[in-house]
């Protein structure tokens, strides 16, 4: 499974960077979202992967028997997903506002010169 994840993460990073290097603000944001997903997956993988065993304490038990997925990385990533969304929402609003002000969706129209 780790091989597949490595491939997926690599592809998401590559695709994200490629999109960020384009000239349009919207593509920049799509790329940003992709790289965000890639980073989350990378952190997730680095804590070790366990198939379909969520960190849930079964009824009647006091603790969960290994192996189970690391709950701490999950908590971290959960925070990261939400923050990533907040950033994206703000960036989208900013893009819209910028377009209204500059009259273009192109990144290079915003540099002085």
């Amino acid at each position, binding site marked *: 499974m780790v091989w597949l994840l*490595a491939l997926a993460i690599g592809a998401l990073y590559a695709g994200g960077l490629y999109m960020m290097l384009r000239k349009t603000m919207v593509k920049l944001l799509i790329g940003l979202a992709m790289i965000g997903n890639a980073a989350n997956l990378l952190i997730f993988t680095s804590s070790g992967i366990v198939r379909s065993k969520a960190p849930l304490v079964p009824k009647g038990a006091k603790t969960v028997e290994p192996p189970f997925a690391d709950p701490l990385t999950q908590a971290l990533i959960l925070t990261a997903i939400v923050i990533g969304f907040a950033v994206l929402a703000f960036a989208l609003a900013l893009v819209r506002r910028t377009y209204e002000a500059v009259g273009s969706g192109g990144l290079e129209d915003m540099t002085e010169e």
Partner: protein
Amino acid sequence: MEPLIAVTAIFALALLAPQTSRLLAHRAGWLLSLLPFGLFAWMASLSPAVNADPPKWNQPWVPEIGLNLAFRLDGLALLFGLLITGIGGLVLVYAGEYMKGDPRAGRLLSFLLFFMGSMLGVVLADNLILLFVFWELTSVSSFLLIGFNSDEEGSRRGAIQALVVTGGGGLALLAGLVWMGQAAQTYEISNLPSLAGHPAYAGLFALVAIGCFTKSAQFPFHFWLPNAMKAPTPVSAYLHSATMVKAGVYLLARLSPTLGGTQIWEVTLTAVGGATMVVGGGLALIQYDLKRILAYTTVAALGTLVLALGIGGEKAAGAAMAFLLAHALYKGALFLVAGAVDHGTGTRDIRALSGLARQMPITGFAALLAGLSMLGVAPMGFLAKEMAFEAALSSPLAAVQAGALSLAAVAFAWVAFVVGWRIFRGTPSQPDAHEGSPGLWLGPMVLGLLGVGLGCAPAWLEGFVGSAAANSVMPDYQGHWSLWHGFNLALGLGVGCIVLGLVGARASERAVAWGAERKAVVGCERAYDAAIAGANRLAETFTSLVQSGRLRVYLQTTIGTTLVLLAAAMLRWTPDFPNRPFDVRPHEVLLLIAMLAGVIGAAHSKSRLSAVVILGVVGFGVALTYVLLGAPDLAMTQIAVEILTVILFVLTFIHLPKFQRASTLPTRLGDAAVATVFGAAMGFLCLVASEQRYGEPVSAYFVENSYPLAHGRNIVNVILVDFRGLDTMGEITVLALAGLGVVALWSAKRSGGGASTR
């Protein structure tokens, strides 16, 4: 903690000064001067204690780094403290009257008090770092005061120049002081041992010397002082003649027992002091602006003090202290006279001034007294000069030191004649000249009288402060001050210099005319200008090099750096993952294929909508991955976020144009290559990271205690809302702020002021 209270009280008074000035107008200075005069009396009353055993105060501040609010009042501190508070009080009175009717008077008084507190801190501090803090505060207040007339170009330039030169020296000084503290194992000044034989001596002496030389306007840093004359005259009298510029001399004197007595010390101080005396004295003769004349002689006088400290020995220490006092008195008086003349006639050009004695008799008398002291005839000046010559003549470098002293003495006599006598004699050239109010002549008169009077009682003066001050410079000082030493070489040299100076002053007009034609900036100042211009050019070049303003370039730089660092770290690794089983299941492969297709599709898509839909597909793929790997909470969140993201994108698109202007094929191929390399590196990193394990994961604690302590069965949730609840609080705050930002940006459109944004 009297010194701390004293300094704090002055700072507090600085805050009250503007209000006082508003209430009392030009009489505010009289009221404000009560504090410095009170402190003057307090310090004077401590003189017996200072002579017996200098009082110390210590209050820990940051003891871990050896920084204490330590103060000590020894002879040297007493001498400076009396000058700072005494002249300071007179200058406050003077400044109030000088600025009469000017709405900025309160600000000037406030800055002057701010400086007074800082300077008092410098001389009372008994901790190297504390001393440095006050030292820098004096530089800041000096900057504020030189640039007081901020609407004048020259004023701003002078202020910045002074700050750059003294501030730059301050940096060297800080390094030197810290180094010294490390070498001596203490930051307490009164406990410093002699470092003359320490291996780091040369280095730390050089750094400290640069700090002192810049502050005290020594050659080749002397140029800032004449330019500082753009400040109002009371400031020039106080900061740039009597006190602040002597801070460097003070520190050299203070550290004389620690760093002095070596050949490096003697040669450096003699060379720099001597050069400063010659340059300052020479340039003073060709100026026509009263204040610039006085500024250049101040430069020469500071050089004299540095030279005297360089000579070392008892005689020189006594001479330095006597000259320091004499100079502060006569030069302070002459600056105040220059201000009064400017005030009474509207000009400071000596070519246009003559016969002022009839119109400004009191000021003229004060100028005469001060001039006599500068000439070296009135007791205080005579005493100082005799002692300096004697000290120089008995040193191994006698020829150089006595030579420099003679040249300076000739210049002093010349200038004393011009400033203290000639402009007051002859036929009046300024019909409107008039005497100022008492506040304007009190200061110069008191200083002038003291310059004569104190010198008449050398034994008393020595017992009061002189001996103790010299003792701080030269422990076990035994010398004694007297006016008459018999007919000797020193007396002969002194008289000779006076005669030469007075004869030379006949050529003053020609010298001034010659100097007035030469507007060229002096060499050292040109070097300063070149350095500043060079720094600006360097900054511009560097900025335009690294700040292209193009996102592409920033991204490429960031990614490139990341790749290099990653490669450096990973290539040293012998990977183990090739041996791992290729354990995959069919549905996982399908998921991967869907995600890969999504990524490629998004990169290729020509339409915005399809790109966003594909982004959604990829997001759902990630969510499914979470499901497969035991993270249902992540999957749920991811799905919710993906839906919202797509909605937001679509809402935004309604207002945006279609994708345009595709890059050229080579650009796209190049970007794709960079992106592929980056992706490969990150995939590789993923493989490497997944097999690294350092120590025990901290999550074991959460797993064990989730149910017993927090009564929650979903460990991820318990971590979020309980164990790491504060983090979640922060996360919510970020979300709320982003929400506010979005609302603000969306509603901004309705107010319609869009076109001006750039």
